[in-house]
């Protein structure tokens, strides 16, 4: 199925990339622009709790992915049903990520270019990378993550001359219910998305380090997102909230002398780095999961057709950014919760109740 092995540090960086990808350019705000740093921390805490649950599950069933675990715990029929729904969810994530990034490119820089140009080139490279296996994905991710953090976050510091701490006042400008709702949303997007790594954890060299690696990755991603959010809010002020891509706007504001200006192409690079990695991980997870679901020997023949389907889904299910916004802000919290929290939790409870996995010699 998958012969490659990745180290725990590589896993950490994969988690970081996956969490940062859309968040960096399209922060989930839900009307709490000024206090988004607070909801980000809230989301991190929730994401860690979610991670604890499924990593416990993965540690309990060493060497099995979530798909296999569901089947072991719930039996072939119910387990497969759950798995199909779960795979659909991951498939949809990949499609959503690519739709958002394509919108970023077509609304900002490439206004005349057809959308398919981006999605087709993107899917070709993604399919190629997926076929190479998780080891190659992890290795490709390393330079791309470095580039993103240093180029995007590093360049963002150039806008600090416009930073105004007054933009954060008043500090607690939201009611508790707003905070809970926005925090809940931030848990499910982006932090809860780390459930995808339930399909990748078995390919870790040191299995017992999986949990700490995922949590470190979440922390790292939260730190980068926090820096970018603080700078964006501080620079743009209240007007930032009306922009689709606030980070992009903050880059447009950069003006150091008459020389360092018009650097707005840099955040769109995020499409080539983090967006690409996110889509590839999602595609890889779906292909691998489907192969395990159907008990295939290898996932590789599935990558290309699933990639094409993902491309079509990206265009069909996200015809415009309004749909993506509605989805992320209103629907996704409830839609994602079963897959991110309820299903792993239920599986864990049933596994404990049924005393699974059966240890050797007990049967």
């Amino acid at each position: 199925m998958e012969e490659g092995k990745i180290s725990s540090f590589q896993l950490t960086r994969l988690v970081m990339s996956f969490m940062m990808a859309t968040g960096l350019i399209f922060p989930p705000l839900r009307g709490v622009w000024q206090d988004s740093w607070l909801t980000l921390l809230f989301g991190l805490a929730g994401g860690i709790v979610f991670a604890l649950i499924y990593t416990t599950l993965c540690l309990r069933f060493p060497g099995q992915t979530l798909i296999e675990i569901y089947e072991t715990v719930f039996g072939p029929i119910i387990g497969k049903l759950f798995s199909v729904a779960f795979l659909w969810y991951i498939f949809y994530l990949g499609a959503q990520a690519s739709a958002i990034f394509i919108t970023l490119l077509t609304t900002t820089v490439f206004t005349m270019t057809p959308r398919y140009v981006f999605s087709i080139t993107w899917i070709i490279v993604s399919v190629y990378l997926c076929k190479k296996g998780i080891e190659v994905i992890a290795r490709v991710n390393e330079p791309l993550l470095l580039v993103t953090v240093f180029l995007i976050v590093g360049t963002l510091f150039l806008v600090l001359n416009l930073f105004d701490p007054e933009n954060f006042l008043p500090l607690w400008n939201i009611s508790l219910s707003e905070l809970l709702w926005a925090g809940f949303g931030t848990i499910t997007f982006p932090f809860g998305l780390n459930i995808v790594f339930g399909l990748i954890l078995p390919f870790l060299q040191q299995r017992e380090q999986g949990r700490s690696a995922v949590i470190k990755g979440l922390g790292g991603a939260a730190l980068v997102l926090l820096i970018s959010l603080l700078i964006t809010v501080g620079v743009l002020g209240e007007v930032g909230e009306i922009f689709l891509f606030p980070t992009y706007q903050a880059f447009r504001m950069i003006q150091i002398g008459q020389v360092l200006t018009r650097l707005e192409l840099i955040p769109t690079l995020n499409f080539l780095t983090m967006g690409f990695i996110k889509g590839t991980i999602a595609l890889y997870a779906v292909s691998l999961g489907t192969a395990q679901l159907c008990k295939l020997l290898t996932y590789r023949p599935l990558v290309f057709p699933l990639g094409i389907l993902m491309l079509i889904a990206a265009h069909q299910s996200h015809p415009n950014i309004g749909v993506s916004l509605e989805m992320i802000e209103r629907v996704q919290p409830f839609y994602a919760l079963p897959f991110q929290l309820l299903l792993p939790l239920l599986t864990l409870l049933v596994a404990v109740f049924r005393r699974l996995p059966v240890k050797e010699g007990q049967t």
Partner: protein
Amino acid sequence: MYEESMVMKKSWIWLCLFLLSGFTSGCWDRKELETLAIVSGIGIDLAQDGENYQVTFQIIRPDAVLGGDGSAGGGGGGSAQKPFWALKAEGETIFAAIRKATFESSRRLFLSHNEVVIINEEVAQKGILPVIDFLIRDAEPRLSQWLLVTPDQAGEVLQIENKLEKIPAAGIALQMQNYFATSKVRAVSLHEFAAQLLEKTTANTVPVITIIETDGEKGLRLERTAVFKEDKLAGYLDQKATRGLLWVLGEVRGGIIVLDLPETGGKVGIEISGATAKISAAVKERPLKLLVEINLEAILGEKTIKQNLVSPEKISFQEKLTEEAINSEVEAALIQARQLGADIFGFGAYLHRHHPKEWKGLQHEWERHFRQLEVAIKAKATILEVGLIKRPAVPFRE
């Protein structure tokens, strides 16, 4: 066998690379400089029917800008081409007008290098949200462009040549950035304007540019400040009140304060070298009391009388007069703002940020509270320098 497959593999790679190079060289969104009409200024008027917009674009003529000196020197045949072209187009909306301009222009209008947006008074009275919306929604225009209001036709303003700069719109932008010479103009970028539109209570201010005529030649002058309530023009501040506003905002960077000396009838020019402002509020009291503390550092710039004014007592007397002058400027701004019922100072935003609890009770009737607001001004001026001479140029023993 092995070698053959390697060769096959290699040739495949070469073929792929070759094909790829064909795909990567092109780009749908390439914008060649010679196919673009670079817009440096946009003027927005109401069309004849009073419904549509008439938009004027000041388009740079690159060859005329470059060859300007040569042709002026040669001066041989024909009239020298202006380095810009003012193109007019009408449309139901701004964007429609921009696209309609291509009926007359051989090149597509390119807005990324636009520097100023000049809005006619009538358009401003109707509300400029439709204008702002396009400018911040579209990918081309930048948020750093300056906004201006004019009582004249904006189209006419963009026709007027600048005496020093080849591109008049760039000249206007530079004119605005010279505000620190007087601090009587408040330059506002699109970003700041949009940001304040989102604040519930703060009224926007935009500089006013008018056409003047000196010695038969037309020119442009910045004067007054237009006050917007929400996105509609509500009235004007004069120059004195504009600096009053800048004092409160802490944006005064320079300028001259002319003091009338009592008794002697002479005048003293105090040069501002820097100022800060700090607002504090007594929120429990009704009517609300605000305190604005202004700290000024200044230089004795000039004087018109024979007496020496450098002695400590004289300097502290001038400091006192300066403080009074600041008070009267801020007072003027307050009076004019109260008349308009427009919170140009952002006092509401200040209360919102620093006293959120009390603000909840105030925000719904902020205009009424603002009119009744008691603002105490505490100016503190310090004269740090007196220039290069220690006494005036009069004989030593008179």
